[in-house]
């Protein structure tokens, strides 16, 4: 017996790696699941940490919603980086396309803004403000027929749907939680937006020379 033991100990030990291999083979599913879950957790954490470095102040957006005064300074540029990164990490945040479009607009990049609003409308065509903003952008670029189409879509959307989207959106929540009075402001802005949409429809027809 001692001979066998000494022989075994004198040869290269393959039993231990072999046993480990067999154990891994038997428990491969839970082990792999655990490793994948851990990897995802680390990735999620690193995404959140990275995104926090780009986090802009949201109060300028809140005052923009409340006063309608245009955004200025370095804020739009900072927000472009933030929403760009956010969409890179979380492509399901469809409302971030609209915010990216707004920031591109105030950063002076109208074509990029249009592209973002097109994506926003493609992701959520039922939201009044996506269609409205797309119509405004087309108008600013002199594409009056496209603007008319988008604005016609906008005026057909219900305010209830708009409020619902704003309430459930994680992206918009970051803004409206900085506002003092939300419901009344949303209603008033929707009214003003509708008014401007009709005014732009008139302007579109004027530029298209559709007088009848």
């Amino acid at each position: 017996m001692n001979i066998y033991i000494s022989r075994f100990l004198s040869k290269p030990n393959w039993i231990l790696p072999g046993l480990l291999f067999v154990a891994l083979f038997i428990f491969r599913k839970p082990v792999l699941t655990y490793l994948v879950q851990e990897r995802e957790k680390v990735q999620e954490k690193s995404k959140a940490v990275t995104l926090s470095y780009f986090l802009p102040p949201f109060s300028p957006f809140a005052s923009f919603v409340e006063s309608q005064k245009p955004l200025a300074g370095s804020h739009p540029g900072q927000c472009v980086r933030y929403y760009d990164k956010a969409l890179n990490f979380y492509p399901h945040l469809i409302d971030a396309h609209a915010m990216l479009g707004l920031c591109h607009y105030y950063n002076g990049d109208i074509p990029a803004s249009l592209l973002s609003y097109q994506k926003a409308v493609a992701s959520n065509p039922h939201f009044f403000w996506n269609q409205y903003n797309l119509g405004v952008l087309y108008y600013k670029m002199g594409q009056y027929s496209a603007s008319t189409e988008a604005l016609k879509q906008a005026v057909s959307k219900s305010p209830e749907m708009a409020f619902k989207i704003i309430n459930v959106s994680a992206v918009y929540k970051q803004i409206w939680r900085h506002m003092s009075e939300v419901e009344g402001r949303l209603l008033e802005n929707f009214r003003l937006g509708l008014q401007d949409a009709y005014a732009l429809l008139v302007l579109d027809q004027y530029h298209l020379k559709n007088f009848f």
Partner: protein
Amino acid sequence: MEDNAFYYYYSGLASLELQQPKEASYFFQQCVKSDPEDADAFYQLGLVLKQAGNESLAGKALQKAAALRVVHGQRPSKEEKIIPRIF
């Protein structure tokens, strides 16, 4: 009232495009009634009245347009005021 002025103003411009100076004059007059601070509407009204041969009224309207420009400067137009919004 200013929003009505906007629609009157563009109805006036459309009437001019359609070679309908009487209608244009009516719309510009309604426009300046709705928004007495609208220099552009006074200017267009002055031009229409001048074309119609009503020199004295045209002169008054054009003078008013010039005076408003001096007082208010170039006011942003309705289309300039329309901007993308969040919600």
